[in-house]
């Protein structure tokens, strides 16, 4: 069972929700796909960490073999290749590593070089396996790191919690593509609601069953409540806007490990998503 936790807005409570679900489940896999700023590890403090590098392919052109025919440049639909002084040149941050240029080259002048763009760290927090995708600074796309991190979700018979990046763009699509259920974390503000609608639209488009967690709850925020009612979105949990919670989170602690009642609350939440264990 793969459960993705997402929210359009940053700081809505994705990591809070995903980390606490994993800790409440105990035997679980937590995968941080927010590779630009993975911070689940700040709470789960994984032990026995090992790392694997993530690479992408970048074309290189053999000046001996390249005749300057320009086939590769004209083929590249991402416009990552330019033709300067009768030779192709690649712009690494625009390249999508599709390998097309090496396929179309009539002179086998293109080889692909592996370039390190980040890493995946694995460790554990008690019985919870902790997987962290980390994109190197300055890299344009985290998608390959997310794909590599999500391989750790394969063949698991324990709940897998996928902590998604914020927004509703390619990295989020990648993160939820294999999810069985999406928890949409909403902040009950105008801004939070706007971005919440965007991620819901995305998850609905991908045909994912969804449920809502409202974080920093201080009372009914009508537009959000009405939207959920209209779209038949179940509100699974309301996490109150409380100083006690803020204190625990800001000191890097895990709510369910500090407040026993929350362990029950998050176990209940897990059950509602279909990820609870028998």
């Amino acid at each position, binding site marked *: 069972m793969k459960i993705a936790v997402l929210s359009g807005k940053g700081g809505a409570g994705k990591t809070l929700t995903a980390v606490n679900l994993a800790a409440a489940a105990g035997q679980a896999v937590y995968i941080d796909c927010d590779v630009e700023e993975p911070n689940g590890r700040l709470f789960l403090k994984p032990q026995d960490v090992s790392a694997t590098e993530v690479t992408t392919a970048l074309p290189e052109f053999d000046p001996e073999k390249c005749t300057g025919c320009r086939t590769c440049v004209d083929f590249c639909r991402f*416009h*990552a290749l*330019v*033709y300067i*002084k009768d030779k192709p*040149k690649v712009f690494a941050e625009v390249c999508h590593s599709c390998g097309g240029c090496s396929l179309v080259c009539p002179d086998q002048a293109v080889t692909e070089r592996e370039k390190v763009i980040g890493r995946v760290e694995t460790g554990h927090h008690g019985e919870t396996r902790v997987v962290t995708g980390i994109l190197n600074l300055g890299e344009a*796309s985290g998608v390959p790191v997310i794909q590599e991190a999500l391989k750790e979700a394969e063949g698991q018979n324990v709940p897998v919690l996928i902590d998604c990046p914020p927004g509703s763009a390619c990295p989020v699509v990648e993160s939820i593509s294999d999810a069985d259920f999406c928890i949409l974390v909403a902040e009950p503000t105008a801004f939070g609601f706007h971005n919440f609608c965007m991620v819901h639209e995305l998850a609905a488009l991908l045909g994912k069953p969804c449920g809502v967690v409202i974080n920093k709850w201080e009372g009914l925020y009508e537009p959000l409540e009405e939207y959920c009612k209209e779209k038949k979105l179940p509100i699974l949990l309301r996490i109150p806007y409380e100083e006690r919670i803020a204190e625990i989170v800001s000191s890097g602690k895990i709510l369910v490990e500090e407040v026993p009642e929350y362990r029950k609350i998050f176990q209940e939440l897990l059950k509602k998503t279909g990820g609870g264990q028998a």
Partner: protein
Amino acid sequence: MRVILPVDEEKDVICVTFGRAPYFAVHDTETGTTEIKNNPASQVQGGAGLKAAQFVLDCQAEALITPRCGTNSAEVLQAADVKIYKSEGMGVSQNIEAFKEGKLSVLTHFHGGYQGIR
């Protein structure tokens, strides 16, 4: 020599962006003629700056006059020895005249990309 400028829908007005300008004006200083060409990069999903820079090279222009230009485009143009000048005001013919009189300054500030990255 040929000099190229990004132009707007009103083809005598310089476009504020380079890569996504709808048209380019290509001026030949020998014949004194100006030709308007569609910018093949104006509607592409990504890499517009690179594709537009490629178009400049394919037009065999030796100079570009533009209000702004991104770092990727600039890298391509500089590698191909295309000079980049900063436009003054919005008139196309005025800028061509200023260029011929050597009154335009070289563009030295290039911005990071706006989009085109997946």
